[in-house]
Protein backbone atom coordinates (compact mmCIF):
# COMPACT_ATOMS: atom_id res chain seq x y z
CA UNK A 1 0.00 0.00 0.00
CA UNK A 2 1.62 3.23 -1.06
CA UNK A 3 1.80 6.47 0.86
CA UNK A 4 -0.67 8.32 -1.29
CA UNK A 5 -3.52 5.87 -0.83
CA UNK A 6 -2.86 5.71 2.92
CA UNK A 7 -3.00 9.48 3.01
CA UNK A 8 -6.24 9.69 1.06
CA UNK A 9 -7.82 7.04 3.26
CA UNK A 10 -6.70 8.94 6.34
CA UNK A 11 -8.21 12.13 4.97
CA UNK A 12 -11.46 10.31 4.26
CA UNK A 13 -11.63 8.98 7.83
CA UNK A 14 -10.79 12.40 9.23
CA UNK A 15 -13.57 13.87 7.12
CA UNK A 16 -16.01 11.33 8.54
CA UNK A 17 -14.87 12.28 12.05
CA UNK A 18 -15.48 15.90 11.21
CA UNK A 19 -18.98 15.06 9.99
CA UNK A 20 -19.76 13.05 13.11
CA UNK A 21 -18.64 15.72 15.53
CA UNK A 22 -20.10 18.61 13.59
CA UNK A 23 -16.71 20.22 13.18
CA UNK A 24 -16.02 20.74 16.88
CA UNK A 25 -12.33 21.66 17.18
CA UNK A 26 -12.10 20.32 20.74
CA UNK A 27 -13.04 16.87 19.50
CA UNK A 28 -9.67 16.24 17.87
CA UNK A 29 -8.17 15.25 21.24
CA UNK A 30 -10.04 12.03 20.75
CA UNK A 31 -10.42 12.35 17.01
CA UNK A 32 -6.75 12.05 16.12
CA UNK A 33 -6.13 8.79 17.99
CA UNK A 34 -9.48 7.43 16.83
CA UNK A 35 -8.80 8.23 13.19
CA UNK A 36 -5.30 6.79 13.51
CA UNK A 37 -6.65 3.57 15.02
CA UNK A 38 -9.39 3.29 12.40
CA UNK A 39 -6.79 3.90 9.70
CA UNK A 40 -4.50 1.18 11.00
CA UNK A 41 -7.37 -1.30 11.26
CA UNK A 42 -8.66 -0.34 7.84
CA UNK A 43 -5.23 -0.85 6.28
CA UNK A 44 -4.97 -4.22 7.97
CA UNK A 45 -8.42 -5.25 6.81
CA UNK A 46 -8.79 -3.66 3.42
CA UNK A 47 -6.16 -4.00 0.72
CA UNK A 48 -5.27 -0.99 -1.32
CA UNK A 49 -7.17 -0.48 -4.53
CA UNK A 50 -6.41 1.97 -7.23
CA UNK A 51 -9.64 3.89 -7.11
CA UNK A 52 -9.75 6.85 -9.43
CA UNK A 53 -11.34 9.51 -7.27
CA UNK A 54 -12.36 11.87 -10.02
CA UNK A 55 -14.19 9.07 -11.81
CA UNK A 56 -16.51 9.07 -8.82
CA UNK A 57 -17.79 12.44 -9.93
CA UNK A 58 -19.12 10.79 -13.08
CA UNK A 59 -20.16 7.59 -11.39
CA UNK A 60 -22.23 9.13 -8.58
CA UNK A 61 -24.85 10.89 -10.74
CA UNK A 62 -25.11 7.80 -12.95
CA UNK A 63 -25.60 5.60 -9.92
CA UNK A 64 -28.07 7.92 -8.21
CA UNK A 65 -30.19 8.24 -11.31
CA UNK A 66 -30.20 4.52 -12.04
CA UNK A 67 -30.95 3.54 -8.46
CA UNK A 68 -33.78 6.08 -8.39
CA UNK A 69 -35.11 4.44 -11.53
CA UNK A 70 -34.63 1.08 -9.84
CA UNK A 71 -36.83 2.19 -6.98
CA UNK A 72 -39.45 3.63 -9.30
CA UNK A 73 -39.44 0.48 -11.40
CA UNK A 74 -39.91 -1.93 -8.51
CA UNK A 75 -42.45 0.34 -6.80
CA UNK A 76 -44.50 0.47 -10.00
CA UNK A 77 -44.46 -3.29 -10.36
CA UNK A 78 -45.39 -3.80 -6.72
CA UNK A 79 -48.34 -1.41 -6.77
CA UNK A 80 -49.65 -2.35 -10.25
CA UNK A 81 -52.64 -4.68 -9.72
CA UNK A 82 -51.43 -7.00 -12.50
CA UNK A 83 -47.96 -7.16 -10.94
CA UNK A 84 -45.96 -7.36 -14.19
CA UNK A 85 -42.94 -9.43 -13.26
CA UNK A 86 -41.22 -12.27 -15.08
CA UNK A 87 -38.27 -13.21 -12.90
CA UNK A 88 -35.36 -15.31 -14.06
CA UNK A 89 -31.85 -16.18 -13.01
CA UNK A 90 -29.04 -15.07 -15.25
CA UNK A 91 -25.35 -15.93 -15.13
CA UNK A 92 -23.28 -12.97 -16.13
CA UNK A 93 -19.63 -13.68 -16.99
CA UNK A 94 -17.60 -10.96 -15.29
CA UNK A 95 -14.73 -9.37 -17.11
CA UNK A 96 -13.64 -7.24 -14.17
CA UNK A 97 -10.57 -8.28 -12.18
CA UNK A 98 -11.21 -10.45 -9.12
CA UNK A 99 -11.51 -8.68 -5.81
CA UNK A 100 -12.91 -5.31 -4.91
CA UNK A 101 -14.08 -4.35 -8.43
CA UNK A 102 -16.22 -7.48 -8.67
CA UNK A 103 -17.63 -6.98 -5.17
CA UNK A 104 -18.36 -3.36 -5.93
CA UNK A 105 -20.16 -4.42 -9.08
CA UNK A 106 -22.20 -7.03 -7.19
CA UNK A 107 -23.35 -4.47 -4.64
CA UNK A 108 -24.12 -1.83 -7.26
CA UNK A 109 -26.18 -4.21 -9.34
CA UNK A 110 -28.47 -4.95 -6.39
CA UNK A 111 -29.61 -1.34 -6.30
CA UNK A 112 -30.16 -0.88 -10.03
CA UNK A 113 -33.43 -1.46 -11.87
CA UNK A 114 -34.58 -5.05 -11.97
CA UNK A 115 -31.35 -6.77 -11.00
CA UNK A 116 -30.22 -8.42 -7.78
CA UNK A 117 -26.88 -10.15 -7.40
CA UNK A 118 -27.40 -13.58 -5.90
CA UNK A 119 -24.00 -15.25 -6.11
CA UNK A 120 -20.51 -14.05 -6.79
CA UNK A 121 -18.13 -16.81 -7.76
CA UNK A 122 -14.90 -16.56 -9.69
CA UNK A 123 -15.61 -14.37 -12.70
CA UNK A 124 -19.31 -15.11 -12.69
CA UNK A 125 -22.11 -13.07 -11.19
CA UNK A 126 -25.45 -14.79 -10.82
CA UNK A 127 -28.12 -12.14 -11.16
CA UNK A 128 -31.75 -12.47 -10.28
CA UNK A 129 -33.67 -10.45 -12.85
CA UNK A 130 -37.10 -9.12 -12.00
CA UNK A 131 -38.28 -8.91 -15.59
CA UNK A 132 -36.46 -10.94 -18.20
CA UNK A 133 -38.19 -9.01 -20.99
CA UNK A 134 -36.23 -5.83 -20.24
CA UNK A 135 -32.78 -4.87 -21.45
CA UNK A 136 -30.97 -5.94 -18.32
CA UNK A 137 -27.94 -7.25 -20.22
CA UNK A 138 -27.10 -3.85 -21.68
CA UNK A 139 -27.52 -2.38 -18.19
CA UNK A 140 -25.11 -4.89 -16.68
CA UNK A 141 -22.54 -4.23 -19.38
CA UNK A 142 -22.82 -0.49 -18.89
CA UNK A 143 -22.33 -0.84 -15.15
CA UNK A 144 -19.33 -3.08 -15.70
CA UNK A 145 -17.74 -0.53 -18.00
CA UNK A 146 -18.18 2.21 -15.45
CA UNK A 147 -16.88 0.13 -12.57
CA UNK A 148 -13.83 -0.71 -14.68
CA UNK A 149 -13.15 2.97 -15.23
CA UNK A 150 -13.66 3.63 -11.53
CA UNK A 151 -11.00 1.08 -10.59
CA UNK A 152 -8.71 2.07 -13.43
CA UNK A 153 -8.69 -1.32 -15.12
CA UNK A 154 -9.74 -2.56 -18.49
CA UNK A 155 -12.17 -5.39 -19.03
CA UNK A 156 -10.76 -8.70 -20.06
CA UNK A 157 -11.29 -9.28 -23.75
CA UNK A 158 -11.83 -13.02 -23.54
CA UNK A 159 -15.49 -12.53 -24.34
CA UNK A 160 -14.52 -10.86 -27.60
CA UNK A 161 -16.80 -7.88 -27.33
CA UNK A 162 -14.30 -5.27 -26.20
CA UNK B 1 -53.41 10.71 31.35
CA UNK B 2 -50.05 11.97 30.17
CA UNK B 3 -47.68 10.25 27.76
CA UNK B 4 -45.52 9.26 30.72
CA UNK B 5 -48.46 7.46 32.34
CA UNK B 6 -49.35 5.76 29.08
CA UNK B 7 -45.87 4.33 28.53
CA UNK B 8 -45.69 3.34 32.19
CA UNK B 9 -48.89 1.34 31.69
CA UNK B 10 -47.38 -0.29 28.59
CA UNK B 11 -44.44 -1.16 30.81
CA UNK B 12 -46.77 -2.83 33.32
CA UNK B 13 -48.37 -4.74 30.44
CA UNK B 14 -44.96 -5.98 29.31
CA UNK B 15 -44.03 -7.04 32.84
CA UNK B 16 -47.25 -9.04 33.18
CA UNK B 17 -46.88 -10.63 29.75
CA UNK B 18 -43.29 -11.57 30.47
CA UNK B 19 -44.09 -12.97 33.89
CA UNK B 20 -46.95 -15.06 32.54
CA UNK B 21 -44.82 -16.48 29.72
CA UNK B 22 -41.96 -17.11 32.14
CA UNK B 23 -44.18 -19.30 34.29
CA UNK B 24 -46.23 -21.01 31.58
CA UNK B 25 -43.64 -21.90 28.96
CA UNK B 26 -41.45 -24.90 29.45
CA UNK B 27 -38.82 -24.15 26.84
CA UNK B 28 -35.83 -22.37 28.30
CA UNK B 29 -35.20 -20.14 25.29
CA UNK B 30 -38.75 -18.89 25.65
CA UNK B 31 -38.16 -18.28 29.33
CA UNK B 32 -35.09 -16.22 28.46
CA UNK B 33 -37.12 -14.16 26.00
CA UNK B 34 -39.78 -13.74 28.66
CA UNK B 35 -37.27 -12.43 31.18
CA UNK B 36 -36.00 -9.98 28.59
CA UNK B 37 -39.52 -8.75 27.90
CA UNK B 38 -40.05 -8.30 31.64
CA UNK B 39 -36.80 -6.39 31.84
CA UNK B 40 -37.85 -4.13 28.99
CA UNK B 41 -41.14 -3.51 30.77
CA UNK B 42 -39.36 -2.49 33.95
CA UNK B 43 -37.00 -0.22 32.02
CA UNK B 44 -39.97 1.36 30.26
CA UNK B 45 -41.70 1.91 33.59
CA UNK B 46 -38.61 3.58 35.06
CA UNK B 47 -37.95 5.86 32.11
CA UNK B 48 -41.62 6.75 31.67
CA UNK B 49 -41.95 7.76 35.32
CA UNK B 50 -38.75 9.80 34.97
CA UNK B 51 -40.47 11.94 32.36
CA UNK B 52 -42.92 13.44 34.84
CA UNK B 53 -40.78 16.53 35.34
CA UNK B 54 -43.15 18.70 33.34
CA UNK B 55 -41.45 20.89 30.80
CA UNK B 56 -37.94 20.40 32.14
CA UNK B 57 -35.60 17.66 31.02
CA UNK B 58 -36.47 14.19 32.34
CA UNK B 59 -34.86 12.89 35.50
CA UNK B 60 -31.45 11.56 34.38
CA UNK B 61 -30.94 9.12 37.27
CA UNK B 62 -33.36 6.42 36.01
CA UNK B 63 -31.93 6.91 32.51
CA UNK B 64 -28.47 6.10 33.80
CA UNK B 65 -29.80 3.06 35.65
CA UNK B 66 -31.58 1.80 32.54
CA UNK B 67 -28.51 2.20 30.31
CA UNK B 68 -26.43 0.04 32.59
CA UNK B 69 -29.43 -2.23 32.95
CA UNK B 70 -29.63 -2.82 29.22
CA UNK B 71 -25.97 -3.77 29.03
CA UNK B 72 -26.18 -5.99 32.09
CA UNK B 73 -29.35 -7.62 30.71
CA UNK B 74 -27.62 -8.59 27.49
CA UNK B 75 -24.68 -10.11 29.34
CA UNK B 76 -27.03 -11.98 31.66
CA UNK B 77 -28.84 -13.22 28.57
CA UNK B 78 -25.56 -14.48 27.14
CA UNK B 79 -24.87 -16.34 30.39
CA UNK B 80 -28.38 -17.79 30.46
CA UNK B 81 -28.09 -18.95 26.84
CA UNK B 82 -24.82 -20.69 27.64
CA UNK B 83 -26.42 -22.41 30.61
CA UNK B 84 -29.31 -23.48 28.40
CA UNK B 85 -26.98 -24.92 25.77
CA UNK B 86 -25.00 -26.73 28.44
CA UNK B 87 -28.14 -28.24 29.90
CA UNK B 88 -29.52 -29.33 26.56
CA UNK B 89 -26.18 -30.84 25.58
CA UNK B 90 -26.33 -32.99 28.68
CA UNK B 91 -30.01 -33.87 28.78
CA UNK B 92 -30.85 -33.48 25.09
CA UNK B 93 -33.66 -31.16 26.07
CA UNK B 94 -33.81 -27.42 26.55
CA UNK B 95 -36.37 -27.65 29.32
CA UNK B 96 -36.17 -27.92 33.04
CA UNK B 97 -37.03 -31.33 34.48
CA UNK B 98 -40.60 -31.56 35.73
CA UNK B 99 -40.72 -32.42 39.42
CA UNK B 100 -44.21 -33.83 39.44
CA UNK B 101 -43.51 -36.50 36.87
CA UNK B 102 -40.30 -37.70 38.37
Amino acid sequence: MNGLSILSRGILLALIWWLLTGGDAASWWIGVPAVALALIISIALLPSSNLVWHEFLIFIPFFLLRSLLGGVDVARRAIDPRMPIAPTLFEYPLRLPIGLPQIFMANTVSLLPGTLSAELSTNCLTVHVLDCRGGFLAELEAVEQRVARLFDTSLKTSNGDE
Amino acid sequence: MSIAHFYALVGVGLISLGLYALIVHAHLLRKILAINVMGSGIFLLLVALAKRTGTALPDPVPHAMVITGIVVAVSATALALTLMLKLSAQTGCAELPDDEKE
Partner: protein
Amino acid sequence: MTLIDYLTVVLLLAGAIFFFAGTVGLLRFPDVYTRLHALTKADNVGLGLMVVALAIQAESWAAVGKLLLIWLLVMLAGASVAHLVARGALRRGIRPWKQ
Protein backbone atom coordinates in the same frame (compact mmCIF):
# COMPACT_ATOMS: atom_id res chain seq x y z
CA MET C 1 -43.91 28.08 4.61
CA THR C 2 -41.07 28.96 2.31
CA LEU C 3 -40.24 27.40 -1.03
CA ILE C 4 -37.69 25.19 0.71
CA ASP C 5 -40.40 23.92 3.02
CA TYR C 6 -42.60 23.00 0.10
CA LEU C 7 -39.74 21.14 -1.51
CA THR C 8 -39.16 19.26 1.74
CA VAL C 9 -42.82 18.32 1.96
CA VAL C 10 -42.89 17.03 -1.62
CA LEU C 11 -39.70 14.99 -1.20
CA LEU C 12 -40.81 13.54 2.11
CA LEU C 13 -44.14 12.49 0.68
CA ALA C 14 -42.39 10.90 -2.29
CA GLY C 15 -40.11 9.06 0.13
CA ALA C 16 -43.08 7.81 2.12
CA ILE C 17 -44.67 6.50 -1.09
CA PHE C 18 -41.54 4.45 -1.79
CA PHE C 19 -41.56 3.01 1.71
CA PHE C 20 -45.19 2.12 1.18
CA ALA C 21 -44.41 0.50 -2.18
CA GLY C 22 -41.58 -1.46 -0.58
CA THR C 23 -43.95 -2.89 2.01
CA VAL C 24 -46.55 -3.66 -0.66
CA GLY C 25 -43.88 -5.52 -2.61
CA LEU C 26 -42.82 -7.37 0.53
CA LEU C 27 -46.40 -8.51 1.00
CA ARG C 28 -47.40 -9.18 -2.60
CA PHE C 29 -44.36 -10.52 -4.41
CA PRO C 30 -44.29 -14.28 -4.84
CA ASP C 31 -40.87 -15.39 -3.54
CA VAL C 32 -37.97 -14.29 -1.42
CA TYR C 33 -35.91 -13.01 -4.37
CA THR C 34 -38.58 -10.70 -5.72
CA ARG C 35 -39.32 -9.50 -2.21
CA LEU C 36 -35.64 -8.64 -1.85
CA HIS C 37 -35.90 -6.53 -5.00
CA ALA C 38 -38.83 -4.62 -3.55
CA LEU C 39 -37.38 -4.10 -0.11
CA THR C 40 -33.84 -3.16 -1.08
CA LYS C 41 -34.53 -0.80 -3.94
CA ALA C 42 -37.75 0.87 -2.83
CA ASP C 43 -36.66 1.44 0.75
CA ASN C 44 -33.29 2.70 -0.37
CA VAL C 45 -34.90 5.29 -2.65
CA GLY C 46 -37.46 6.15 0.01
CA LEU C 47 -34.79 6.79 2.61
CA GLY C 48 -32.71 8.68 0.05
CA LEU C 49 -35.53 11.07 -0.76
CA MET C 50 -36.21 11.63 2.92
CA VAL C 51 -32.53 12.26 3.60
CA VAL C 52 -32.41 14.85 0.81
CA ALA C 53 -35.61 16.45 2.10
CA LEU C 54 -34.21 16.73 5.62
CA ALA C 55 -30.76 17.77 4.41
CA ILE C 56 -32.11 20.95 2.83
CA GLN C 57 -33.57 21.80 6.24
CA ALA C 58 -30.37 20.95 8.11
CA GLU C 59 -28.65 23.54 10.23
CA SER C 60 -25.07 22.95 9.12
CA TRP C 61 -22.97 21.26 6.46
CA ALA C 62 -21.81 18.69 8.96
CA ALA C 63 -25.43 17.75 9.61
CA VAL C 64 -25.98 17.35 5.87
CA GLY C 65 -22.92 15.15 5.70
CA LYS C 66 -24.10 13.04 8.62
CA LEU C 67 -27.46 12.50 6.96
CA LEU C 68 -25.77 11.44 3.73
CA LEU C 69 -23.44 9.17 5.68
CA ILE C 70 -26.45 7.47 7.27
CA TRP C 71 -27.98 6.93 3.85
CA LEU C 72 -24.73 5.57 2.46
CA LEU C 73 -24.46 3.09 5.33
CA VAL C 74 -28.04 1.91 4.90
CA MET C 75 -27.40 1.54 1.18
CA LEU C 76 -24.25 -0.50 1.76
CA ALA C 77 -25.91 -2.70 4.36
CA GLY C 78 -29.06 -3.09 2.29
CA ALA C 79 -27.25 -4.12 -0.89
CA SER C 80 -24.96 -6.50 0.98
CA VAL C 81 -27.71 -8.12 3.00
CA ALA C 82 -29.87 -8.52 -0.12
CA HIS C 83 -26.99 -10.31 -1.85
CA LEU C 84 -26.28 -12.50 1.17
CA VAL C 85 -29.88 -13.54 1.64
CA ALA C 86 -30.35 -14.24 -2.08
CA ARG C 87 -27.12 -16.22 -2.13
CA GLY C 88 -28.12 -18.22 0.91
CA ALA C 89 -31.54 -18.92 -0.56
CA LEU C 90 -30.00 -20.16 -3.83
CA ARG C 91 -27.59 -22.38 -1.97
CA ARG C 92 -30.38 -23.86 0.07
CA GLY C 93 -32.24 -24.78 -3.06
CA ILE C 94 -35.08 -22.30 -2.83
CA ARG C 95 -36.11 -22.07 -6.46
CA PRO C 96 -37.00 -18.68 -7.89
CA TRP C 97 -40.63 -18.23 -8.75
CA LYS C 98 -41.42 -18.53 -12.47
CA GLN C 99 -44.59 -17.53 -14.21
